[in-house]
């Protein structure tokens, strides 16, 4: 039998339900492998002991009707977990232990999932390489000193390195899809309003969305079914009829119309990305899809728009970290001095940069020129998609403009770092579902992903296209366990 840790979620569930393996055996395997993989630095907080205990409890009183029966799962450290430290990758929350549980993680535990640990991420999910985390860089298991992407870099790395069978990330501008693309894994950002934001440390409220990250498409469909729910505790949660994504998953996408937006052919895009995209189009055709050229005319404005809207919301969302109520408090001569010292010591450079950008664009005299204009452009970007969806059912693009880069390569050049999100950001601005699936490799054998963008609430079509293309692409990561 293959190693337990190399099994995907679906296989694990099957084996547990058939009583071929116990929850405790599964938990043990992942804990053991995680223990041997500290060099990857994926965990901020381990929950190994408790996970082993809970898996035994499950085995003693199993419930095989659950969707995640006794499955250990590590989650991004942006989800608040009851009694388990939650840091958001920041020094300012270094000592923060919530007394409550995020809705998304609660949904997972309700279906039998067991918390394995909290995964590293960029500080407050601000970053594309996991290099802004207070808890240090995360290694990409694909190759040494390669970034795992970000901000859900701990999640993508843990998943690719078989340290967790599945995981969840959050995606504000590409933070699920880009790391998935960099690690040869699958990452789905659902429609805005599909998964509750309750209990997720906020970055940019109008863009943040939790989603599954997995080794294959089917696993993502299983997890999406668990985490997507209407939640009254989140006013932006939407009460729509959710599919049984995994049981409705099909490879029959004959006649589905897939749009190819010409604006995504950006200047300076490496040839291998262009090639990958073309290959993707062929795969889609092979699957029976109809390919249609479309235009999303405002695409080039998406990145600047995003880098106004997201920092604006972040500057306000992060105001609560002031040393008064919880988290880090530095001592000061008076209130203002305490604020300044706490926030200077508590936040890293990238977070400070975005707070300053956000504060600036909301300031009186600049609001209209930046924030208000950005909101208008955001509407235009949405309209682009609306119009495109009159003609097509989904859109196919590359996930990222490049493969994973070396640690430190871009950390001193924020703008070049921001460009990483160029293909993923429009999807967040329009609130649409998008998935990244591994589709090939570059000249260094580093993985590259393709992105499928769907209509609002039409995760099923996105998953179906990904599921059928995945079969044709037949991508396999080549992980050498170099860190062990």
């Amino acid at each position, binding site marked *: 039998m293959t190693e337990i840790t190399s099994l995907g979620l679906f296989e694990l569930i099957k084996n547990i339900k058939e009583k071929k393996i116990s929850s405790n055996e599964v938990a043990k395997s992942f804990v053991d492998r995680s223990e041997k993989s500290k060099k990857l630095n994926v965990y901020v907080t381990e929950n190994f002991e408790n996970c082993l205990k809970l898996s035994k409890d499950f085995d003693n009183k199993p419930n095989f009707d659950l969707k995640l029966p006794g499955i250990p799962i590590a989650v991004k450290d942006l989800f608040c977990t009851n009694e388990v430290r*939650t840091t958001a990758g920041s020094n300012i929350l270094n000592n923060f232990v919530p*007394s409550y549980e995020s809705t998304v993680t609660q949904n997972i535990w309700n279906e039998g999932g067991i918390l394995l640990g909290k995964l590293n991420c960029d500080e407050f999910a601000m970053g594309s390489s996991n290099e802004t985390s207070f808890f240090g860089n995360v290694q990409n298991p694909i190759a040494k000193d390669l970034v795992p992407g970000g901000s859900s870099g701990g999640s993508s790395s843990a998943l690719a390195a078989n340290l967790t069978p599945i995981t969840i990330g959050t995606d504000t501008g590409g933070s699920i899809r880009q790391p998935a693309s960099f690690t040869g894994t699958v990452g789905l950002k659902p429609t805005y309003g599909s998964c509750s934001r309750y209990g997720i440390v906020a970055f940019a*409220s109008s863009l943040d969305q939790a989603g599954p990250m997995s080794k294959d498409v089917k696993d993502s469909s299983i997890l999406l079914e668990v985490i997507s729910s209407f939640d009254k505790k989140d006013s932006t949660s939407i009460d729509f009829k959710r599919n049984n994504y995994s049981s409705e998953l099909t490879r029959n996408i004959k006649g589905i119309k897939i749009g190819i937006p010409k604006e995504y052919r950006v200047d300076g895009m490496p040839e291998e990305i262009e090639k990958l995209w073309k290959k993707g189009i062929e795969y889609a055709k092979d699957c029976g899809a109809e390919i249609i050229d479309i235009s999303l005319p405002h695409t080039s404005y998406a990145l600047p728009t995003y880098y106004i809207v997201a920092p604006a919301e972040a500057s306000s969302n992060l*105001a609560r970290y002031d040393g008064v109520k*919880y988290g880090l408090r530095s001592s000061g001569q008076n209130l203002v001095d305490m604020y300044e010292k706490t926030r200077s010591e508590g936040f890293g450079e990238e977070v400070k940069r975005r707070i300053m950008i956000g504060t600036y664009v*909301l*300031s009186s005299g600049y609001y209209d020129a930046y*924030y208000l204009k950005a909101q208008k452009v955001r509407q235009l970007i949405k309209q682009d998609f609306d119009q495109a969806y009159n003609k097509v059912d989904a859109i196919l693009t590359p996930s990222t403009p490049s493969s994973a880069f070396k640690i430190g390569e871009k950390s001193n050049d924020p703008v070049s770092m921001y460009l990483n999100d160029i293909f993923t950001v429009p999807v967040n601005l329009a609130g649409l579902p998008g998935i990244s699936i591994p589709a090939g490799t570059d000249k260094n054998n580093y993985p590259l992903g393709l992105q499928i963008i769907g209509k609002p609430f039409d995760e099923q079509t996105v998953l179906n296209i990904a599921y059928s293309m995945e079969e044709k692409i037949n991508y396999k990561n080549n992980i050498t366990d170099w860190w062990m």
Partner: protein
Amino acid sequence: MDVIMSKNNSEYLIKRKDNVYEVVIGLEVHAQVTSNSKLFSSSSTKFGAEPNTQVSLVDAAFPGMLPVINEYCVKQAIKTGIGLKAKINNKSVFDRKNYFYADLPQGYQISQYKYPIVGEGNVILDMSEGQKQVGIERLHLEQDAGKSIHDVDPSNTLVDLNRSGVALMEIVSKPDLRSPDEVNAYIKKLRSIMRYLGTCDGNMQEGSLRADVNVSVRLKGSTDLGTRCEIKNVNSIKFMQMAIIYEANRQVDLIEEGEEIDQETRLFDTKKNETRSMRSKEDAHDYRYFPDPDLLPLEITDKFIDQIKSEIPELPDDKKKRFIDDFKVSSYEATILVSDIDTAKYFEEVVAKMGKNRDMKLAVNWITGELFAVLNNKNIEIAQSPISAKNLAKLINLIKNGTISGKIAKTIFELMLDGDIDPQIIVEEKGLKQQSDPKALEALIDKIINDNREKAIEYKQGKEKLFGFFVGQAMKASSGKANPQLINEILKKKL
């Protein structure tokens, strides 16, 4: 201070040399919404709880916590808007007002900036010169902040978050007020309307009603507005009036000295009775308002508004009109009776219990006279009146049907205070029934005239003052129970 003492309460004029200035006032009233739970969380809003015992994770702004609008508070705001005869906006937006303070856990206050829930309306003031209409600019919903306590610990400021997130209505008037008296009338009228509606208890001691007062001055006759100063967070009508008087005179003095008035925010020092600069316009906060992305725009259907309209009770203006029309009370009396919903309720109950042969004049006089005096003395509200409306009505009926005299009634009233005793019982037990038997009274008067022959002769000779002497003797002889009207009649006949 050269203040022209105008008989007109609707203006406050300040004279300096040849110049006469008038004061222009606008109010931003912060009224706490009557609601069991907060604007965006389910924490209790009960006053007087131990510090930090009514604080949810949302109120304390824990990571990942999200606001969820309290529908009841929205209804209350709409109700108030209807009471102010204002436009209810079908779409309004919650914004974040960003600033740092220890008692503001989120680092921003959720408020409504560009798109408030209620638009323009008006309030009618009953001034002694007649009615005056004051324009309402808007009403919006917002969160209250917590409380910083500086005087408990010698080296630390303590924070109590019980108030954090409590729903407030900010009611902004137009700059239509012209005198401290009008401000008094305006606040009282607002409070009255909200108490009728049950949307704010108007309790200023508990901070349920506070106001920022905008004051400017200008030469009488001018139509331009002067530069205004905003006096922050004044929590009693008396202090508002004192602050306005101080501030208006300060501004006039500056103008007279040829200086400019800085647009600034000021604080009223209640001990020194003066306003002090808090921050100038240049130092004004940049609140960086933007729509709260955690909340969707608030959309209200006409059906929802109509439903609330159908639940609106009779409001003071309408009640006043009805009292005048139906009960034939004067406009002045009606204004007093309707100003407080509990007074109006009490009055209406007295009227109902008096039955067919009711005497409105007596009812009004007894409520606004004797009863109000007792309430004032005991410093209690009419809702806690020691005499029920039912028993006061009985007392009035006893006067009306001649069973007792007005004078005896006052004695009985005093006795009734001790446990809301039925006046009928007091009359019977104490034998206080009025003597109205003409024969008995004639005998009594005959005896008095006999005993005071000389005085009777003097009276007949023209010393008319002595009539009062005989009345007094008759009352004395009857222990005050004699019907005074009959005594008068019989005396006139006999003397």
